[in-house]
């Protein structure tokens, strides 16, 4: 994987989580700002998926690519699900779901990098 893109995604995901954590602690529901950050995160993940598939088709990548592809596609669901949940639950707990979503995306990208470089499989 491209290290730069992965790092950017991890930073944005953790920023989204921190931003949502502030709302959770202040007893606020999510607002437009959270939606925008999640949108940026989703766009980055889509870019990563495209780059990932291009590289996989070019013969790069881990031996057993099934797990990697699973992570690549699974990660796309998380920000969307988090945003949907945050819009449904108009309370601090809706923001809390976005915290979980941000942390989950960050963990998934770290795991993808491990799978790609063949460490920690």
């Amino acid at each position, binding site marked *: 994987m491209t290290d730069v893109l992965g790092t950017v995604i991890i930073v944005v995901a953790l920023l989204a989580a921190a931003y949502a*954590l502030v709302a*959770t*602690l202040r007893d606020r529901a999510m607002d437009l700002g959270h939606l925008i950050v999640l949108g940026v995160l989703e766009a980055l993940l889509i870019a990563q998926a495209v780059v990932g598939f291009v590289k996989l088709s070019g013969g790069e990548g881990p031996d*057993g690519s*099934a*797990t990697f592809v*699973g*992570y690549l596609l*699974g990660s796309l*669901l*998380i920000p969307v*699900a*988090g945003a949907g*949940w945050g819009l*449904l*639950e108009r*309370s601090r*707990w*809706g923001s*809390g*779901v976005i*915290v*979980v*979503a941000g942390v*989950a995306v960050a*963990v998934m990208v770290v795991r993808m990098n491990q799978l790609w470089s063949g460490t920690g499989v």
Partner: protein
Amino acid sequence: MSEPDRARPEHVRPGTRADDGARAGTAARTGGTRPGTATGPGRLLVAVYAIFALAAGARAAVQIATRYSEAPLAYVLSAFAAAVYVLATVALARGGRTSFRVAVAACSIELAGVLVVGTLSVADSAAFPDETVWSLYGRGYGFVPLVLPVAGLLWLRRTARAAGGTPAGGGRPVSGGE
């Protein structure tokens, strides 16, 4: 002092029919007999459960599809864990009486699973050559698999209390500790 008390109409007497009052209150709050397992903090729980259902399910599917013969026991356990997570997610998200029982059962099985498999994987690592969600008490997943069923059971107990009669003191929800 019971004479004047008895003379009063029932709905005026405070505290004597706690169950009726609580039931009416619950019906007004949640629109039925459903315990609200999926609202408020429950959303958070359902979200984490959903992620684990996804993670464990995907992992089990890959393991069984690509290298089942290497460690059949570990992979079957992975699949079982995934099924329990899916069950818990759906039951917590749906609410209602049956779902409540299913959720309690799923969380209990999960707690037992993570404790038994965790202990076995420490004691006899040869039987678990590849990691499952529950290996080493869920260390590979930040010990969340160990915390999750406990949080689930505590949450279920609290929603059950809220639905079955609020104890004196108002039962104000304790804000979640983050």
